[in-house]
């Protein structure tokens, strides 16, 4: 029987949630016996190869690419989990939400003490995806089935959540594993 597939993505996140997943340490070897990894930044599968049982998405949406990838995940995954504070609330990147985007771009590309910018404008090449007006949590864009808070959620939180769902058990995490920090 083929193993259930798991896909992962980091959108407007820092990869810390992926690191926390790797912090399950030697249990990674157990995990790869339980599941097969589909699209994920840790392998070279760049497009979905089929239906996935679980999608783990870290980070919120800060540009049009993030929205596109998130919609793809919703389409291909039976269960979609928002992992970490950026995915569930926007997190630290959402600190820019109270500031006009133009000011953020100007600070980074025009005003800094080391900036050398002969063109006098921020990057705007068509190769670059459009930046959204603000950073959105995942549930503002698609339906999310589970939320795992934490910055990042601990390895134990991720492990217990994954193994419960893979074994068709209800996801009931003990109080100490559900942290907002």
């Amino acid at each position, binding site marked *: 029987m083929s193993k259930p597939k798991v896909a992962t993505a980091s*959108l*407007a996140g*820092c990869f*810390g949630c992926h690191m926390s997943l*790797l912090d399950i340490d030697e249990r990674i070897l157990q995990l790869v016996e339980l599941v097969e990894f589909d699209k994920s930044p840790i392998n*070279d599968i760049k497009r979905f190869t089929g239906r996935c049982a679980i999608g783990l998405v870290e980070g919120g949406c800060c540009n049009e690419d993030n929205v596109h990838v998130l919609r793809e995940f919703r389409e291909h995954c039976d269960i979609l989990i928002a992992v970490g504070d950026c995915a569930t609330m926007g997190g630290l990147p959402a600190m820019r939400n109270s500031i006009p985007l133009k000011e953020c771009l100007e600070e980074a590309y025009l005003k*800094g003490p080391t900036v050398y910018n002969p063109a006098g404008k921020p*990057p705007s090449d068509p190769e670059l995806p459009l930046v959204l007006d603000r950073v959105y949590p995942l549930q503002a864009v698609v339906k999310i089935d589970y939320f795992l808070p934490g910055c990042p959620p601990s390895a134990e939180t991720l492990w217990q959540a994954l193994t419960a769902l893979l074994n068709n058990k209800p996801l009931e995490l003990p109080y100490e594993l559900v942290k907002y920090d």
Partner: protein
Amino acid sequence: MSTTLKRMTIEPVTRIEGHAKVSLLLDEKNVIKEARFHIVEFRGFERFIQGRPYWEVPVLVQRLCGICPVSHHLAAAKAMDLVVGADRIPPPAEKMRRLMHYGQMFQSHALHFFHLCSPDLLFGFDADPAIRNVIGVARKFPELAVQGVMMRKYGQEIIRATAGKKVHGTGAVPGGINKNLSISERDALLREQPKMMDWARGALAIARDYTVEHLKTLAPFGSFDSNHLSIVRRDGAMDLYDGLLRAISPAGDRIFDMVDNQRYVEYIAEEVKDWSYMKFPFIRSLGPEKGWYRVGPLARINTCDFIDTPEAEKARKDFASVTGGKPNNITMAYHWARMIELLHAMEKITELLHDPDLQGRDLLAKGERREEAVGILEAPRGTLIHHYVVNNNDQVVRANLIVSTTHNNSPMNMAVKKVAEQYLSGKPQITEGLLNHIEVAIRAYDPCLSCATHSLGSMPLAVELVDAEGSVLERRMRP
């Protein structure tokens, strides 16, 4: 420009951290006319940090990057030490931070080598992408995979013992640190130490032997002459936590040396280009065309005069002998240099664990407040610069960050261009394996693009052939 130029993109780049793509322009014979490595995310950190109290900064900024949060945590803390007037922090505090930093170096280098890059080296650049990943490594070389996982774990445990948490800890505070190392924490780390030393030696041997054995292919692979930059200790030794800025030319001549960190603005500038959110740093005296440079393990081995731990120093000499003592400009030599640092970090960890200062209680210092300060250290991926201005109300009013991966922007673009010319140019068919060659060169730099855009990201890769009018001719995706 000819009207028959084709555009091709590789998107997203995988097994690196962050969002990026590669775009290529080819003529009618598939000869490469232009190759660019684009960073596609933007966060705006420099602006939204304004108004926050300075003591929050070491905890906030590490959220730029979950792979090397400790680097940002400590660079910000070093700057804030100066803001609170702590020109020197007490030895127990500095040693705790150093232990945290070497733990970070150890875990990050292990992660990069074993989890992200070893598949290319063990299976070949154009191996089947279905097995060319860490799970493939775990199946074929289980012992090696376990070592990689456990080495990373050890580094993470050091971070937890010094910072309170494996990812995004809170140990360093302006002026010092908020805990020392308990005897039980120390003993738990010492118990695993001999095994880690052995495995670090083993990892170095793998990287060294691989490089030496394949030198003929690897030496030209995406290689080019460049300047190199890092901090070094006052006596010229490699020092990853603290030192003065040194830049050398491709031949090894000093461009500047022993530059005070507070004056980095006079020596380094960053060019903004329209097609990437990542800026392009350069040495001011040489200008944007000639002043770009490399940072990271390769640059550090090149800039330092020696390493102050015996086994890593022996390895450095061995490394230097390949290029007759001259700076090594081989892109793929990054892996070997990185593993020398892995061993160096483990030697330093060993030294520190035996130092009774780590159980000291003098953890904080302060003095006369300053308005402006710069904190620089060598992060796993290279020189990391944090610069802040803080007002009388304790609020940050300006922040300028030049992160490790940003320094390597021009070199990575150069490597992409070289590999595209060497392997893809003029080929009638662009295969997945050929595309991975470009990614292999990018991965050598261990880019961390979340940091570099001060944004948030992950990495995938697709290639598109587009004609001059912009219609898609051919599309290849991974897998």
